[in-house]
């Protein structure tokens, strides 16, 4: 099963895409993804229910979060209500160690995203802060990467023996599906997604056109 693990909707402050339009776009362009995960910035979107939309388009639509730490941005998959009470998702200075510890305590999976990016990526902070404990997966393909960012991410993943995921980091409709992750089995819920990531049977994919 192929899922785009990193997308934003209008629920995020810089997101400009409406979720129905993502679905329409995926089907109109016959994209090879079977669903996507909405990783809204600094929050978990409990309010939105996309189940009817998912059925209408035959897509899997899941929810997660993108939080901010001293090592940059981190996707958190498998978010539960109790996890959102364990730390303040809106805090832009979260300690990565706390995000990792609390995520694992609550069955969630933290994944530093666009780690090769300046300032908001993990690699930029390793010289000053050291290699963080507990990271097992990083985003190696990000649809918004510029220059050497994905190469830096992949090199870091190789060096630290991290698994890699892919996500488009879409903020507008037409950017969905630029990168994705293939899972060996079916993933139908946030819990199953966290379980699949823990299991390690996945592969990062990039569909970006090479300039």
């Amino acid at each position, binding site marked *: 099963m192929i899922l785009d693990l990193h997308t934003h909707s209008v629920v995020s402050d*810089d997101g*400009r*895409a*409406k979720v129905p*339009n993502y679905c*329409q*776009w995926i089907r*109109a*362009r016959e994209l090879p993804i079977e669903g996507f995960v909405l990783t809204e910035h600094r929050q978990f979107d409990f309010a939105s229910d996309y189940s009817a939309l998912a059925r209408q388009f035959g897509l899997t639509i899941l929810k997660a979060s993108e939080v901010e730490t001293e090592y940059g941005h981190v996707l958190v998959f498998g978010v539960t209500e109790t996890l959102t009470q364990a730390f303040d998702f809106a805090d832009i200075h979260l300690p990565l160690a706390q995000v990792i510890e609390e995520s694992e305590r609550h069955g969630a999976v933290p994944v530093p995203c666009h780690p090769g990016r300046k300032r908001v990526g993990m690699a930029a902070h390793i010289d000053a802060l050291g290699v963080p404990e507990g990271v097992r997966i990083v985003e190696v393909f990000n649809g*918004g990467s*510029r*220059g050497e960012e994905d190469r830096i991410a992949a090199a870091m993943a190789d060096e630290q023996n991290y698994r890699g995921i892919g996500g488009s980091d879409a*903020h*507008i*409709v*037409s*950017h969905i599906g630029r990168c994705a992750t293939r899972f060996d089995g079916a993933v139908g819920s946030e819990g199953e997604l966290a379980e699949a990531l823990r299991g390690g049977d996945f592969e990062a994919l990039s569909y*970006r*056109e*090479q*300039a």
Partner: protein
Amino acid sequence: MSVNGITDVEFGDTLPVFDPDTSLANVARFVEAAHWNAPRFTDHEAARAEGLPGALVPGIMSQGFLAAMIHRWAPKAEILYVDTVFRAPVVVDQPCHINGVVTDLDEATGEVEIDLTVTNEAGETRVFGTARARLPN
């Protein structure tokens, strides 16, 4: 190809790519007219001294390019808004391309939503956003 009205438009339609003039001479003309004249827009060395990668195309000029692109595609369109997110600088004298695609439309109101991206020669997104425009029936 240009369109005259909403009935000419379908979801997913791609607007003709627009390669705007980002030359120093053109930017200098723009900032003079806009009363935004500052060395960071018209002098590469002065901009680099401020830590920038070179002289910048002003954000409002980029937005003007986006509006111009929409009107090249749909000359009769009334642009309701152009909403942009600036991800990286658009640098003067460096070619860029503007792509647009229709990602929502309402035939009843004649309104379309357009995804817009400004990319550099390497295909990297510098600016993205959406515009909403109303086309005649």
